[in-house]
């Protein structure tokens, strides 16, 4: 494969993985606008520790994961304990992602502020990879890595599905009081999912930073990237395993396709079309592309009334 298709494949898998991480919570009715914070924590913790202290990204990643889990608990526990749901949950997490972005910008002496930062290069001479520095010159290596991580994400999705049972999941998302009354520990169940989702998103941020070898606050944190995750998932389909990945592929290919068709003459044409499609999706096709497609193909063979997995 040439470099360009490889690059696209890596991005689709990486974003597919991040969107999958988000939708672990999203399909429980926990619509988070704060996942940019976890991605930013992953990306910036690793890059900053490497640049300022020469700490290997492997150790940096461990610290980033601990940090992300702590933030997830500090935000998640009170939210679930005090039943902050729906609009309110979305807006509290929105504040979180803005806090992450603003802190990164405010620490401009260390982080480079809005201009972003580049991890110090570890590949000298003819080296093509440095495992200790988590830097790889070849895109093939990256494709293998993100593919493995993406598969891992799908495995987690499946494991969550199996361990809790679809009925318990639906019970929590639809009727919290009723779920609690039949013995589901709602706060604990939600918190566990939130921590898993945050950790996975944090890993996504780390990989993003190490692959692009450049981070900036708007690309990895803040409201814009958080909304991008939410809408990528909605476009693809929140309730099916491959839906988020389809959403990532769809948005990326739409942008690239329009860029190839029109060049850079119309810089925001793809997002304009994407915005219109999102509105139409949410109104007429709330299950997303994959969800709707599966429904279309499966309906004749399945007894009616059975919800899709």
């Amino acid at each position, binding site marked *: 494969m040439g470099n360009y298709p490889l690059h696209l494949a890596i991005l689709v898998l990486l974003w597919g993985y991040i969107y999958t991480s988000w939708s672990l919570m999203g399909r429980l009715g926990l619509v988070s606008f704060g996942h940019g914070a976890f991605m930013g924590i992953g990306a910036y913790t690793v890059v900053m520790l490497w640049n300022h202290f020469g700490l290997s990204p492997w150790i940096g990643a461990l610290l980033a994961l601990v940090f992300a889990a702590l933030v997830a608990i500090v935000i998640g526990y009170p*939210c679930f304990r005090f039943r902050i749901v729906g*609009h309110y949950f979305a*807006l*509290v997490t929105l504040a979180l992602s803005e806090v992450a972005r603003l802190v990164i910008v405010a620490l401009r002496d260390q982080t480079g502020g809005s201009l972003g930062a580049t991890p110090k290069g570890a590949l000298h001479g003819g080296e093509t990879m440095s495992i200790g520095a988590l830097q790889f010159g070849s895109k093939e290596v990256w494709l293998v890595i993100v593919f493995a991580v993406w598969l891992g994400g799908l495995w987690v999705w499946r494991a969550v599905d199996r361990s809790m049972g679809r009925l318990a999941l639906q019970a929590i998302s639809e009727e919290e009081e009723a779920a609690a009354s039949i013995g589901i520990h709602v706060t604990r169940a939600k918190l566990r999912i939130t921590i898993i989702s945050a950790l996975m998103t944090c890993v996504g941020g780390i990989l993003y930073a190490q692959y692009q070898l450049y981070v900036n606050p708007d690309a990895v944190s803040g409201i814009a990237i958080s909304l991008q995750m939410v809408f990528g998932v*909605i476009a693809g389909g929140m309730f099916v395993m491959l839906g988020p990945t389809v959403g990532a592929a769809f948005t990326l290919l739409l942008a690239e396709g329009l860029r190839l068709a029109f060049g850079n003459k119309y*810089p925001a044409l793809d*997002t304009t079309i994407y915005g219109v499609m*999102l*509105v139409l999706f*949410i109104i007429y096709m709330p299950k997303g592309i994959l969800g709707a497609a599966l429904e279309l193909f499966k309906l004749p063979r399945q007894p009616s009334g059975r919800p899709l997995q």
Partner: protein
Amino acid sequence: MSEVLDIYLLEAVLNGLLLGGLLALLSLGLNLVFGVIDVVWICYAELIMCGMYAVYYLHVQFHWPLLVAMVAAIGIVALLGWILHQFVIRPVLSAEPINQLLVTGGVLFFLQAAATLAFGIEFKNVGVSLPSVRLGEMSFSSSRLIAFGVALAGVLALWLFLRRTYLGTAIRAISQDRAVMPLMGVDPARIFRITSALGGGLAGLAACLLVLQYDIHPSIGLSFGPITFLICVLGGLGNMMGGFVAAFIFAQFIAVGGFFFALEWGYVIAFVFFIAVMFWRPRGLFG
């Protein structure tokens, strides 16, 4: 030394007060729409952005007098609010609440991208520069003073409208009980349309005040959109008085926090304060 510090601190506090007036106006339309229709317009700040572009093009490109351009812009954004309700919100009124939130997020993407496509990413300025007002050692920008005054007048006018007119009473009644009002002969669909246009008009008014202070660019909505939502939630979504008070609290955090640290830290403190308040009072300070 300490006296100098005090006068600058006082200046920061007063500037915070001026900012509070503007933020109060920003949150007003969003709160009105939420209180009546029970929908959060995530794209509210993007409607304001449209209003700012309207003022810019009418005044700078078509040479309309500034005030006429502003009045026209308010009308245009009111129309946008009406369109938003008719074509985007109405189809999802009976869908899950979170879908209503998300659909306006799609509109946010669309408006931002469409503005980039139509107007480019260059910063635009209406080129009105007003002198700053000196008060002893302190100086204040007069565009901020005007914004503060107009914002307070707008809040008062809306309050009178809701209290003293038949239509206003109907709007308040709908927000209190959506189910029973149709039985009293009030058509909710009509009230929703009027409220949406009114909410849009308030966004347009905010736009007129913001163009005096800020450059216009397609993603300007993201810089004050989040804070507008947080103010509304802090005051209790739909509670207009709560939002009004919350705006001044938030503005003080930003102004005084920004005075002691960097500006971003002022925002960080305000946002962390918001999160903490939510845990203490999940329905907002006055919810």
